């Protein structure tokens, strides 16, 4: 719908309006709070539920994971690869636990599915590296975030 705006002679001339506009930009420049977060020094506060880099929770130095294969089953991106094995202190444990992070969509469904509270998503979001890191078992066992 076309709305007919009533304009006075001053609005038609635009000069006063332009000066008002110039004042608005100047006011923003001088007095308004700047919203920039200066990254390495300041960081944005994320929610506790933020889903960032993965890790496998360990209790007393033993991984919680029992290689039940629930997380690779539920994973929509099919990025979790687990090979199960047996060892004296644990009936079933993951011999290999790898996450293809490039495929991961950080949906957090693995975390929800896990019955042993093993796979967790920390709130670390700086995941860029200068070398190609494989998210293998030893890497994932690093207790990041400590949730």
């Amino acid at each position: 719908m076309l709305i007919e705006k009533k304009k006075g002679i001053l609005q038609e001339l635009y000069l006063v309006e332009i000066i008002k506009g110039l004042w608005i930009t100047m006011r923003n420049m001088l007095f308004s709070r700047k919203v920039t977060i200066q990254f390495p020094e300041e960081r944005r506060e994320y929610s506790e539920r933020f889903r960032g880099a993965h890790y496998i929770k360990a209790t007393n130095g033993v991984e919680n994971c029992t290689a039940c294969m629930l997380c690779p089953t539920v994973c929509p991106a099919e990025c979790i690869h687990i090979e199960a094995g047996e060892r004296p202190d644990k009936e079933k444990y993951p011999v290999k636990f790898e996450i293809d992070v490039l495929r991961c969509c950080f949906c957090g469904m693995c975390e929800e599915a896990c019955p042993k509270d093993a796979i967790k998503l920390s709130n670390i979001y700086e995941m860029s590296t200068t070398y190609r890191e494989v998210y293998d078992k030893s890497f994932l066992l690093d207790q990041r975030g400590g949730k």
Partner: protein
Amino acid sequence: METFDWIATGAKIAFLVVILLQVVPIMSWVERRGSALMQNRLGPNRLGPLGLFQAIADAIKFIWKEDSIPSHVIPFYYFIAPLVSFVPSFITFAVIPFASSISIDGHVVHFQVADLNVGLLYVFSVASLGVYGIIMAGWASNSKYTMLGALRSASQMISYELSMGLSVVGIIMCFSSVKLGDIARQQGELLTHLGPFVIPSSFHIPKWGIFVQPLGFLIFLISVFAETNRLPFDLPEGESEIVAGYHLEYGSMKFAMFMMAEYLNMTTASGLLATLFFGGWQLLPGMGFLLHGFQNIFNLSSMACEWTRIFFEIASFGIKVVFFMWFFVWVRWTLPRFRYDQLMDLGWKVMLPLSLANIGVTAAFAYYGWI
């Protein structure tokens, strides 16, 4: 010319070139920081104090970037186009006086590289040469967006050059000269009457162009924005419509030359605005008092007095130019871009009749001896 004149001219040229080359990196920094602050951001603030060295980083990047040439361009014109737009923007400044004169050993030195007797006409002729660079770039790049940019630029230049030229006619009438040196000098006189009304002697204001020709100033200001391809009239570039317009196919130093041309055009335009309408090197209110105080406190010799006067005049001119440079940036981040038909409407239906009317009114005033 004598040896002294050669040296003086060389010194003036060197001074101007050095100053003008500094303008480009500083303005690119001002534009980025200024725009950021107006949009509630911070802008580049990492490199050096307040991010000032960002300009140096940019320059290094421009120099070391690969100078790639697209295969579809017309090489000769593609290569000379940046030069053709860069050089005119530089040489316009030759006729703008940046201080009054000083006499050294009986030689009078005017602080103006060339006091041409065609002054303003030279400015307009050279300024309109700049558009050839843009058209060449647009044509030689052989791409549809650059072509559109060049076409827009050409039509915009023609439309606004008219009203720009005509708006200055009023100033020429008032000061009876096209020499910029004369115009700047005459603006130091006092304005005794405003049209038919006599101003009481205690309220005398300097005879600056803006008080004599307020409408002329407005038209000139708007036209100058169009001439320098700055927002709200940046249709030749129009990022959101035609990618980058005429310099789309340019990279590295050739692109940098277009950017330098734009900023130098802005500087020249600011210099012109200051010279024609704000008294050029005439001291700003309060600066005369400051100058006398300075001279008296330090008990300067007559020669040193003269040099401090020159310094204050250059500073005064500089402040005016800097204000207008800032005004260009300020307006850029305030107003949105005009649509093409609105641009043409404004140019032909508003600016041209207004500037003609301004000439008529000024002529009538001059006839009755009110100016």
